[in-house]
């Protein structure tokens, strides 16, 4: 029994990593109506800024704050300088542009820091505690706590603030929103900025475990996308629940299904996601997209 719980707990801490990036994906989707593949690239770039700072002796917490501010500016700048040219056009083209941004950002990180992974200091003490026979790292507890706070903050932003309402309106229909006097360009810039800032938090949270490298999040991004989609794409709570689910299913499959083992276990959550989406196309928590013509 305690082995089972251990596997679940380990799965949850993997899930926390997916959730961090999934939340950022949900944020951009809510704010711009796009799935943003550059999300991972922006997060890694901002995390490298934190890394460079810790290398010269800046405390991790302060480095995180700087990375968040840097991330916000980077996101806003990319929206203004690059994405704005694709707004109002074909959404597919815009999504391809975000992929191009991902490639460029990864290339830049590699140029400055190389491809090999570097150790990254943790925000939380590197200790493991035992609770009722189950070992949990303080890092996992810390990561999950921060994520829950971020999740609640995002939920409040979109549900209960004027800024959140305006961001959702612009994502829904920018032209029509402009007719109600919404500053569309500025809102899109803020949306990208917030997403990249959140990416910086996610990056700093997961880097100690993954080690920092330009490709650090490539793998995670796939899980994060699966989580975001499974969660309904527009629901912060849905994304976190889905990420936890994926992390746990992946770990359980690896531990209990002998024929699967560690190599094949990555496929299991995707199969689960596909099955769920066939039954519930709007995701676990998504609002059903109703269209009438």
């Amino acid at each position, binding site marked *: 029994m305690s082995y089972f719980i251990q596997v679940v707990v380990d799965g949850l801490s993997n899930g926390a990593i997916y959730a961090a990036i999934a939340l950022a994906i949900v944020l951009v989707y809510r704010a711009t109506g796009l799935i943003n593949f550059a999300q991972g690239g922006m997060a890694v770039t901002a995390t490298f800024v934190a890394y460079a700072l810790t290398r010269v002796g800046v405390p991790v917490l302060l480095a995180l704050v700087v990375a968040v501010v840097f991330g916000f500016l980077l996101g806003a700048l990319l929206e203004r300088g690059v994405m704005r040219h694709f707004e109002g056009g074909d959404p597919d083209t815009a999504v391809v542009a975000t992929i191009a941004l991902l490639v460029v950002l990864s290339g830049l990180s590699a140029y400055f820091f190389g491809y090999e992974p570097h150790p990254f200091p943790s925000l939380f003490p590197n200790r493991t505690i035992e609770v009722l026979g189950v070992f949990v790292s303080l890092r996992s507890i810390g990561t999950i706590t921060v994520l829950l706070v971020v999740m609640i903050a995002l939920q409040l932003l979109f549900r209960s603030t*004027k800024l959140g309402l305006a961001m959702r*309106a612009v994502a829904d229909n920018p*032209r029509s929103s402009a*007719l*109600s006097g919404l500053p569309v360009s500025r809102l899109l810039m803020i949306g990208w900025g917030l997403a990249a800032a959140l990416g910086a938090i996610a990056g700093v949270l997961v880097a100690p475990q993954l080690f920092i490298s330009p490709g650090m999040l490539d793998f995670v991004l796939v899980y994060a996308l699966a989580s975001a989609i499974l969660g309904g794409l527009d629901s912060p709570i849905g994304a976190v629940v889905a990420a936890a689910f994926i992390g746990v299913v992946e770990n359980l499959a690896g531990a209990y299904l002998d024929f699967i083992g560690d190599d094949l276990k990555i496929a299991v959550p995707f199969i689960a996601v596909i099955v769920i989406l066939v039954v519930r196309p709007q995701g676990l928590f998504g609002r059903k*997209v*109703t269209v009438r013509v």
Partner: protein
Amino acid sequence: MSLLELEDVTASYGHAQVLHGISFSLSENGATGLLGANGAGKTTTLRAISGTVRTTGRILFEGRDISGLGPDRTAHLGIAHVPEGRGTLGQLSVRENLLVGAYQRKDRKQIATDVDYVLDLFPNLQERVRSNAAALSGGEQQMLAVGRAFMAKPRVILLDEASLGLAPSTARRVYDAIVRLRREAQVSMVVVEQNANLAFSVVDDATVLETGRVALHGSRDELMGMDAVRRAYLGG
């Protein structure tokens, strides 16, 4: 002084010029109609006023030339454009759509009162206030679009074919509410319609457009008395 005055306004999409010098005016607390066949330039004229198409000529609003200002600026000045096709924010609830309309306002208490007023004006929306706007019927979406424009507390509402695609009785109900809005909210209106009967239930006078030019202007009674207008827009 007129509230809104267009002087020799042209408008183009890319290289294609579609308005060739339109002039008309709207008086304070007035309502004027724009009639014309498909493609005459009615929608483009409204876009010229709200700043969503490139123009030349002068567009005076409260005596100030607003040509060249974008839609967020004209909205701020008090122009609410209810676009053709309604512009409903489908993934937002009915209430949220109304609150987006009030985006530029700060008077929170009054906003809540005005939401209630809209729901009183359009009882159909009352029951759907929490539903996604995409789930509304065409008529309900049109009501929502009008309500959202009112929520901005504008000086003038630009209304583009509010009857489009609606059953006659639904269109009639939408226009009854618009008439009531005009009377109670002291808002001026530019009303674009293909159905002149509906338009004439609101407006005092109207301009008839033909291929981007003014073909005719007259008071409601003058126009309704003309055989040509009756044949073209009033169903005989």
